[in-house]
């Protein structure tokens, strides 16, 4: 589903964020990306939803080389690839309900479809009572869960989660990760960047580790946060 071939990223200011990364993630797989702060996890995910283009190498998502994707095709890629952003990125002038619904609006979903799916998804992340509030009226952890709900609601083939539990307590974090694992079980490809050692160790799934933009480890099954 996601194939990075010899990918390097150098930002305009000269920072080398990724170096020669080769990564292949199959449909329905669940993979963790770990690495210290600034090691390139968010950059790697940004390549997949085409927020940045690789300086070198190929990025192939769902069989398509997206480095060469013309700008007007990018929105259609992004409808297949949902993202839980590290900094949430909710629309401040829309309620929680509308924020989650927006992911359906861009698909041209009907009012009925929205009224069916949005409450269901809010229920999943435990925010039914906050549906009519605005993002600024929520705690950080609640905002993070809204972002998770938005990325789930349109049942995307690919789900990227960038530190989705950074503002959640351990119990809630575990629930959310279970949720993501469930979705992966239903055929969605899930890639999650995280610092949460406990979760990674407990899940025992594939772990890709980055150090200063280089892929230093790819533990396929029963992966642990620290190299053994």
């Amino acid at each position, binding site marked *: 589903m996601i194939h990075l071939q010899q990918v390097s990223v150098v930002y305009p200011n000269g920072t080398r964020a990724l170096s020669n990364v080769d990564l292949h993630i199959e449909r329905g797989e669940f993979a963790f990306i770990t690495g210290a702060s600034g090691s390139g996890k968010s950059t790697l995910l940004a390549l997949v939803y085409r927020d940045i283009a690789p300086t070198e190498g190929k990025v192939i998502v769902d069989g398509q080389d997206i480095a060469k994707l013309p700008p007007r095709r990018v*929105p*259609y890629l992004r409808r297949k690839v949902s993202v839980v952003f590290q900094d949430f990125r909710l629309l*401040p002038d829309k309620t929680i309900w509308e924020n989650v619904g927006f992911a359906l609006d861009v698909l*041209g979903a009907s009012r009925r479809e929205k009224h069916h799916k949005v409450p269901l998804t809010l229920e999943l992340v435990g925010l039914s009572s906050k549906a009519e509030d605005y993002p600024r009226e929520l705690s950080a952890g609640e905002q993070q869960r809204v972002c998770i709900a938005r990325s789930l609601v349109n049942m995307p083939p690919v789900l990227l989660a960038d530190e989705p539990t950074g503002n959640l307590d351990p119990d809630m974090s575990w629930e959310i990760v279970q949720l993501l694992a469930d979705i992966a079980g239903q055929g969605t490809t899930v890639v999650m960047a995280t610092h949460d050692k406990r979760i990674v160790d407990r899940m025992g799934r594939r772990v890709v580790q980055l150090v200063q933009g280089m892929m230093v480890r790819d533990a396929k099954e029963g992966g642990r946060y620290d190299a053994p």
Partner: protein
Amino acid sequence: MRLNTIEFLLQQSWEGVVRNGLVSLAAVANIAVALVVLGAIVLTGVNLQHMASLQAEAAVITVDLEDEADTAEIQAALLGRQQVKEAKFVGKDESLLKWAERIGLELPEPDPDRRVKLITELLGGNPLPDSLCVKPVDPQDIPAIAAEAKKIPGVAEVRYGEQVTEKLLTLARGTKISGLVMGLIMGAATLLIIGTTIRLTIYARRREIRIMQLVGATNWFIRIPFLLEGVFQGLAGALIAIIILLPAYSYAQGYIDRNLEFINLVYSTEVLAIFAFGLVACGLVFGAAGSALSLRRYLRVV
């Protein structure tokens, strides 16, 4: 586009106007002020032009004939030119009567023929020549016609109040040109102001636009609410401009009509309807064009 999408976009635009009251106010005020100024310039220009042409239309060329000239031939020569609309013969006696009237000579004689006789006696002869009163098709051509007329044999002198006519023509031309220039400058300034204002509103909402892009909204999906918002604002600005300009103009027209009869303002329902329609059209174009141009720049990077 699906019906759901259209419904959603319309709702978005309307929410944009309501939620961003402040931003909308700025844009609407800008457009209204610009259109008021633009409209005032247009109205002033139209009226000056109208007055100048009214005055110029009354302008005639007087062609004095020599005593033994062939009037019919000269008349034919003049009417042969495309620029000449009319060339009426005015006899020397008729001219004399008019002159006497103009200087206020009071004679106890009502019969024209006998009046002529009396004045002729009084002055010891009629010093005035026969003449042709020539009207041009376009007042602009007066000097050219006069120059040509002078060359015709049998023409003694050509008079046309050079001073006044030429000044009026210059004024009319000047008004047309400067009105056009002012109008263009103001139009450009309006577009600039509206463009920067809308760009500012987009700048103020840059994070939201980026978020929408990241969630998979196409540029058109993001653009349309802004465009419609611009159109709404343009419309509102135009309506305000009309509400200010039309009553003000009508008041000015009444005031001038009562106090300064020699000034003659254009005031027909038809003209004012066209004018109002023009304002609305300008507002729409400004609003839409301003948004469109600003959006282009801001949405280029996906």
